[in-house]
């Protein structure tokens, strides 16, 4: 038990230390090897940490033996450990997959490229594990800055514009969070989450506190790409290198959602958050907006990666919808979808990356008829798509089922219809890709395409298999999500 507590900070420290070392390594093989080993070891530690906190324990580690609230502490319960497991797991699978694609797309200076990848992941993990609000801001900026750099590595010159606009919006989001943290600090004189929660004058109707909560929710909504603040996301995902699209689609928005929940439920407390501001109604409206706008725009796109990016906006809607029900079962559905969506988006972007690797482009015209040339890739894509739509027996079905149940339990039966309609929209845009790739003939002038190597297919199929595995055996996902929701709400929700 105590040895796990000592090991826990290394989930963040391993990638953070391996990052700068990566810069110094020459060539293409060594930086990649170090990055992969770092993420695999972080994954193993997170698995042990989740096992240790699964029964409701909390691990606390005070840095430099300065006890909180003076020092910075990492406090890990089921909610953090669950998100950390997703980040480290997905990146440990995607890094081996991305090696040839990175060789192709970023041929030079791979040492610094992998260093940025590691620092971005270390930042995300730091946000996840820390129990200190200022630490959240610093890690948020660390991971964001690295992500801007990574997006700018895309080969298309529009990647630079996407990175710049993401930088402007992302910094506004992070600065809003800093304003909220400033208000919290002014009111309580503390930066430790637990300490703030005890000291906040939540019963006194302080206007400053309402403003602080508003700034934090809006700032993190930008990072979360909640409609209508999602504007940075489609271009950023579309023009980034394939590995980066897959990595940040599976991790970055999920971490932002987790932090928002941590603030709403643990720092401010649900009793205050949902009465001070019309947060439940507002989040529900924006979530429904996300679901419909994202799905609709995804149907209209002619580029596969952009379509998947808009679909991410729609899926963020489902996660926020669960939160807006303000029940434990809704929160469970949110966490469940947070994890499952990470898996399905990683699989979809990974197979899309293989298509781009072999076809050169991801416009619908490039994809015409490639189903017969790349059957394994396209089958993987189709099966991950089934999970995205939410058909049994996939992980996507489980999370939609819990979301529907939570909506019914909360007495919002009309939401069931909306969830089903947006699922049908997902069916439309996934089926369109399948139709173009399998049913249409390959144009005569199109270059010949061959199936990706099995070493590239294996990680994609591991992710696809995970989607089915967690659709059948839900002990880890549902159990983890339930514990995470219980840890966050700590009995304050119906």
């Amino acid at each position, binding site marked *: 038990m105590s040895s796990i507590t000592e090991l826990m900070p290394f989930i963040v420290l391993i990638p953070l230390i391996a990052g700068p070392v990566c810069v110094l390594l020459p060539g293409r093989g060594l930086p990649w090897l170090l990055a992969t080993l770092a993420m695999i070891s972080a994954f193993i530690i997170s698995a042990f940490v989740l096992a240790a906190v699964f029964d409701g324990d909390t691990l606390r580690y005070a840095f430099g033996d300065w006890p909180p609230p003076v020092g910075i502490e990492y406090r890990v319960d089921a909610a953090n450990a669950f998100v950390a497991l997703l980040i480290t797991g997905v990146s440990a699978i995607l890094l081996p997959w991305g090696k040839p694609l990175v060789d192709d797309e970023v041929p030079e200076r791979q040492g610094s490229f992998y260093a940025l990848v590691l620092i971005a992941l270390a930042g995300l993990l730091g946000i996840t594990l820390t129990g200190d609000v200022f630490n959240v801001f610093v890690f948020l900026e660390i991971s964001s*800055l690295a992500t801007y750099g990574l997006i700018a590595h895309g080969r298309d010159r529009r990647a630079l514009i996407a990175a710049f606009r993401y930088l402007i919006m992302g910094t506004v989001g992070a600065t809003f969070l800093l304003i909220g943290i400033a208000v919290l600090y002014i009111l309580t004189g503390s930066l430790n989450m637990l300490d703030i929660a005890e000291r906040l004058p939540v019963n006194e109707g302080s206007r400053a506190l309402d403003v602080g909560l508003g700034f934090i929710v809006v700032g993190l909504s930008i990072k979360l790409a909640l409609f209508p603040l999602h504007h940075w996301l489609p271009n950023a995902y579309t023009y980034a290198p394939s590995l980066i699209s897959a990595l940040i689609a599976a991790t970055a928005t999920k971490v932002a959602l987790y932090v928002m929940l941590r603030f709403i439920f643990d720092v401010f407390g649900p009793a205050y958050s949902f009465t001070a501001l019309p947060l439940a109604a507002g989040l529900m409206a924006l979530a429904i907006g996300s679901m419909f706008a994202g799905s609709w725009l995804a149907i209209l796109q002619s580029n596969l990666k952009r379509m998947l990016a808009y679909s991410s906006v729609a899926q963020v809607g489902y996660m926020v919808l669960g939160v807006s029900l303000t029940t434990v079962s809704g929160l469970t559905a949110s966490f469940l979808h947070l994890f499952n969506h990470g898996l399905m988006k990683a699989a979809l972007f990974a197979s899309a990356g293989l298509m781009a690797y072999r076809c050169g482009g991801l416009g619908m015209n490039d994809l015409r008829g490639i189903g017969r040339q790349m059957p394994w890739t396209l089958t993987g894509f189709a099966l991950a798509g089934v999970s995205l739509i939410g058909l049994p027996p996939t992980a996507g079905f489980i999370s939609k089922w819990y979301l529907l149940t939570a909506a019914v339990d909360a007495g919002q039966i009309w939401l069931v219809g909306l969830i089903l309609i947006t699922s049908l929209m997902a069916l439309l845009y996934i089926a369109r890709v399948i139709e173009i790739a399998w049913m249409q003939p390959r144009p005569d002038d199109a270059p010949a395409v061959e199936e990706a190597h099995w070493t590239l297919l294996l990680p994609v199929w591991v992710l696809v298999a995970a989607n089915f595995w967690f659709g059948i055996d839900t002990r880890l996902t549902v159990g983890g999500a339930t514990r995470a929701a219980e840890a966050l709400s700590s009995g304050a929700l119906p």
Partner: protein
Amino acid sequence: MTLISMVNYWAVIVLMMTGYYCMIVRGNMIKKVIGLGIFQTSVFILFISAGKVNGGSTPVLRDGVDLYSNPLPHVLILTAIVVGIATTAVALALTVRIREAYGSIDDDDIDAAAEEDDRV
């Protein structure tokens, strides 16, 4: 009286709105970055104001002084300033690359060029 005593918070609000306006309205990327800098600085001032104790001296140990301002916000803001510098540096580096790729740093020109790219 209260209006004057709150002058630092008014300055924060004015700077914040100036920076934000600059970021949204200006098409020139350098001006956007300047707006970003002003916006961030306003939050730094908000934080530092919070550390001021009425009648308190600078947080340096001296004989005959026993009321100090709170040093913690200064320390935090030192970190935030470093983060701000890093953000500005990345933004300027991206601007240089955009200028190399597009020959312009104006939003309208770049949007036109990007639409050109979309058609190809």
